[in-house]
């Protein structure tokens, strides 16, 4: 995969390949925290309408890859394009669900207030929230089954309910590409089903989904594509081709026992 085309991209020269068909294309991405690379020279090509899992051990740079793709953390090198356009001209096309634990849920806000925060692009810096924005936010809450909680203080929600509110906030962004960071971490089974149902519906509407995912046993149930990451890209492609015992061993090194991989029911190559 590291042919002359990607090398050209890394050099910062004009891209020879046409990235317009891809909702998200990352080329030669390197992100560094305090002099240590968290993500090193990673390429990622997300197929339209796919549902891609980003899988790898702790500290592999999974969240960092998402954050760099969204411009939240600065890139040391590399390019990020959305349908061939740079991030600054395509922010409206991408929605984000950060890790639930990344915010203080004791913040003085109601559920509806949080969903409305997903409309910052529509509203700009200065325009006030109007009735139509509230009604759209209520629609987004209804899609995740939380319309009855609109007036609830966010600190009173369970972990699963918080996750659904974050998903509703992402829906309010009205995007075609959804980047989710561990959307199933620490949530109840009902929430996991609800989130999967919403993501499936989004795909049916033509949206593309990328999620950082830590539960290896459900990768094949939920996702069509997978990116195996451990600072560098180990492998990328359709789940049935890429999600193999060999690739997992390469991704996790010695940390994943042969027995664990055996539990996944993968054919060793």
């Amino acid at each position, binding site marked *: 995969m590291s042919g002359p085309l990607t090398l050209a991209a890394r050099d910062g020269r004009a891209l020879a390949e046409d990235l317009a068909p891809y909702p998200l294309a990352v080329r030669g991405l390197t992100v560094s925290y305090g002099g240590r690379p968290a993500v090193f020279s990673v390429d990622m090509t997300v197929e339209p309408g796919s549902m891609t899992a980003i899988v790898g051990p702790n500290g592999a740079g999974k969240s960092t890859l998402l*954050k760099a793709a*969204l*411009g*939240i953390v600065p890139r040391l090198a590399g390019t990020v394009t959305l349908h061939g356009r740079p991030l*600054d001209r395509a*922010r409206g096309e*991408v929605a*984000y669900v*950060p890790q639930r634990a*990344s*915010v*203080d*849920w*004791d*913040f*003085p*806000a*109601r559920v509806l*207030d*949080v969903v409305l*925060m*997903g409309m*910052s*692009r529509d*509203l700009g*810096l*200065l325009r*006030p*929230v109007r009735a139509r924005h509230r009604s759209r936010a209520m629609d987004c809450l209804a899609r995740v089954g939380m319309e009855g909680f609109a007036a609830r*203080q966010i*600190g*009173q929600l369970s*972990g699963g309910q918080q996750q659904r509110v974050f998903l509703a*906030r992402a829906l309010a*962004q009205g995007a075609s590409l959804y980047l989710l960071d561990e959307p199933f971490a620490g949530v109840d089974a009902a929430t996991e089903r609800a989130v999967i149902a919403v993501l499936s519906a989004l795909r049916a509407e033509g949206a593309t989904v990328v999620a950082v995912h830590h539960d290896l046993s459900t990768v094949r149930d939920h996702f069509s594509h997978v990116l195996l990451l451990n600072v560098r890209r180990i492998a990328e492609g359709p789940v049935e081709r890429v999600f193999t015992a060999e690739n997992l061993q390469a991704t996790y090194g010695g940390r994943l026992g042969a027995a664990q991989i055996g539990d996944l029911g993968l054919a060793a190559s």
Partner: protein
Amino acid sequence: MGPDFVVLSLVPMLIGALAAVACALPGNFLLLRRQALIGDAISHVVLPGIVAGFLVTGSVATLPMLLGAGAAALVAVALIEAVRRLGRIEPGAAMGVVFTTMFAAGVLLLELSDTSSVHLDVEHALYGNLESLVWLDATGWQSLLDPAALAGLPPELGRIAAAALGVGLFVRLFWRPLAAATFDEHFARAQGVPTAALGLGLVMVAALAAVAAFDAVGSIIVIAMFICPPAAARLMTDRLGRQVAWSVAFAVLSAVAGYILAGYGPLWLGGQDAVSAAGMIAAVSGLILAAACLLGPHRRPRPG
């Protein structure tokens, strides 16, 4: 409340209340961002800057003081970084060392320089000079309609009113993105909200409030004004808008009640002299926070 009240107490009370409101407004957001100590830091760091501004221009005017305070803040940031890296000290301790050292330098600078011609000395820097901001041109309530008397109002009143207005406008204008960036900075940034500029703007209006208030009420009370009313307000409600409204109410209450208690409290208790208004305002705001901790309707920690 006769003419004496208008001459001696009305203006100091107004200045105290405006200073408290100007500090409480950004204080709400600093508190929610877990940056409450920035208010503390600013109130300490600005002292050498204010003194330097005075020494260069020879006058107690807001603009040179603000510029001096801004320069002092930049020096502080550079020093913190230097202490942290060269001394291998954790950031919190590095900040503490730099702030107290710069404040001490400001105190020494004040003592060494001749500031006898203006209201600028060590006691003023610590406690302010609220009691001395009297309206000598007033003869009673009717003076509020008398242009000649109004022209004799202490200039501090205009300064703090302008600062409070500026702070209020910033918070009102950028309310929604400020709230969004305070709750979830990364998400806001992913949407293209200029979170770094908003955070810098917040610190800048906090500095504006600190400098304008410092001039009148000193550095001790400024810390209390940044933290106490918003912290008490947080315990009264679970809505951001109401929290800010409560903090403004608590700010005004502590300023007015503190000023009255300082002026008349000792007399009521059979004493002779008034006590420091700035100290009493800070004490009252602390008492309000204590009461909110014990009685506020939203003081329970929530589950996970």
